[in-house]
């Protein structure tokens, strides 16, 4: 009797459908996946170690580059953690603008997910439509913050500067057009026979497995667990807005798809509410040790110049202690754990990213399925390698 062996295939780090440099070693029995082992680390840049040699302000651009599809959300998570450590309050106008930017960024991140997921499965039109919408959002970011992909807009204690003139009209025209675009996406994919056949019943993960494997975000909500950090532990005035959490039932790729589509609609509604109710006032806290003075005063007054110089070169010294603070990024629960020993560098900055745990759940979802479903599942859990490897 001949001995049967499984075929080992390497889905290498350079691959058009792994979103970044991910390597999976698959063992196949014909077309059925028997075992899958992901190998990561090809984008490990040492951000946690680098943060230990920089001041607290200088770490903000590093957080932009982790999950590069959701840069404003990462900034928000870090800035909230440091503000908790210091124990300072942020004015209302700054909190509302932070919510507006974070939700616009969530829409942009989900648009990338939809475009690349559909491209992997074969529907190339969605990519072109989604990138056209995303360009509108990136133009808004460029006008507000100066950068398209890595805006670095938030600062510890508030924002770097106020919204420019005329931006509210542009945001309003975007959110008025967006529901029409959502209808276009739904007609293309939601009841499409090919899409249903490739996504229904594929990559199922049960509720208990998802909780045990530490999955979070739309991947967890697709399995039926109604957990969202914005509702459970509200931060930055999220409890003043009116929105709902979409939940799936089965936990397959199609459920995660519908959950993210509904989330885009709710994000649009939240941005509309912030625009209508935006209060007037300062955009940064008035603590002189942390927030930079306005530029006109720096150029005229020696005390402001000294203050500006000290904050930029040395930073501030927070109290000794440790904090853990989490936000809902577009992919799940993003958490920062900062240990401070009283000096102006963080003693330890630990970043818990959602894609790290979601990828850990990947073998559970694909073992026993066909090899063509591996691509659908990777697209549906929406991983970004910059976040996994840090």
């Amino acid at each position: 009797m001949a001995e049967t062996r499984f075929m080992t295939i390497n889905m290498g780090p350079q691959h058009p459908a792994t979103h970044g440099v991910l390597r999976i070693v698959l063992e196949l029995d014909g077309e059925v996946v028997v075992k899958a082992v992901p190998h990561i680390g090809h984008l490990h840049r040492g951000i946690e170690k680098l943060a230990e040699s920089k001041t607290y302000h200088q770490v903000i651009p590093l957080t932009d580059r982790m999950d590069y599809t959701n840069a404003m959300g990462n900034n928000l998570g870090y800035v909230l953690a440091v503000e908790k450590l210091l124990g300072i309050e942020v004015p209302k106008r700054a909190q509302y603008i932070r919510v507006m930017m974070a939700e616009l960024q969530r829409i942009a991140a989900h648009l990338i997910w939809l475009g690349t997921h559909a491209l992997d499965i074969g529907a190339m039109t969605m990519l072109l439509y989604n990138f056209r919408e995303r360009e509108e959002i990136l133009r808004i970011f460029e006008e507000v913050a100066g950068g398209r992909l890595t805006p670095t807009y938030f600062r510890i204690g508030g924002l770097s500067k106020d919204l420019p003139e005329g931006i509210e009209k542009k945001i309003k025209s975007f959110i008025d057009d967006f529901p029409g675009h959502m209808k276009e996406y739904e007609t293309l994919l939601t009841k499409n026979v090919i899409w249903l056949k490739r996504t229904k019943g594929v990559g199922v993960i049960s509720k208990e497995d998802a909780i045990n494997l530490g999955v979070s975000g739309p991947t967890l909500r697709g399995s039926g667990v109604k957990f969202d950090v914005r509702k459970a532990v509200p931060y930055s005035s999220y409890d003043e807005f009116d929105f709902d959490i979409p939940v799936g039932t089965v936990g397959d790729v199609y459920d995660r798809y519908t959950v993210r589509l509904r989330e885009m609609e709710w994000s649009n509604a939240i941005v509309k509410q912030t625009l209508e109710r935006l209060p007037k006032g300062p955009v940064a806290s008035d603590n002189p040790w942390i927030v930079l003075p306005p530029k006109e005063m720096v150029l005229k007054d020696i005390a402001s110049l000294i203050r500006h110089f000290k904050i930029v070169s040395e930073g501030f010294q927070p109290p000794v202690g440790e904090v853990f603070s989490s936000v809902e990024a577009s992919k799940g629960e993003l958490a920062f754990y900062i240990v401070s020993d009283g000096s102006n560098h963080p003693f330890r900055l630990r970043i818990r990213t959602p894609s790290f745990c979601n990828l850990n759940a990947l073998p559970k979802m694909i073992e026993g399925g066909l090899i063509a479903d591996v691509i659908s599942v990777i697209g549906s859990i929406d991983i970004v390698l910059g976040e996994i490897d840090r």
Partner: protein
Amino acid sequence: MVEIDISVKKLEEKFPASILEVKTFRDQVTVSIAKKDVCEICKFLCSDPDLQYQYLTDLCGLDLFPETPRFAVVYHLYSIKNNQRLRLKARVGESESISSVESIWKVANWFEREAYDLFGIPFENHPDLRRLLLWDGYEGYPLRKDYPVEGPDFDKPFVPEV
């Protein structure tokens, strides 16, 4: 913080010898425990019907260089039912090891591999303890305090082995 007091009280009743210290900073509770009882304490916290800390949010290492024991392993637990967070800290010496909690929460598999990779803390009873983020054959543990940020051989040119 009524529920947090219940968790700490129940822990103190069941494991009085293992709880070393309870600290509160900015409304967050840290419980320092002895490393030999990590597995039992975690099993109790996960399976107790009132507490139900079934979600392990994070597991990381910490290097407190001149102090001994040198390392600490920090666990962040979350209970979805009660909406409560708890932090556990266990100190580990330089050449000691700590038992793995992978049998309780499967997500700890990769967290512990990362702590081993970057700090050098070995975990007992781990199914597959090897380097995760750095390549096999890498020498040194980067996140320790006595390791330079640029790496030890920054001034030598880099030649990849193809």
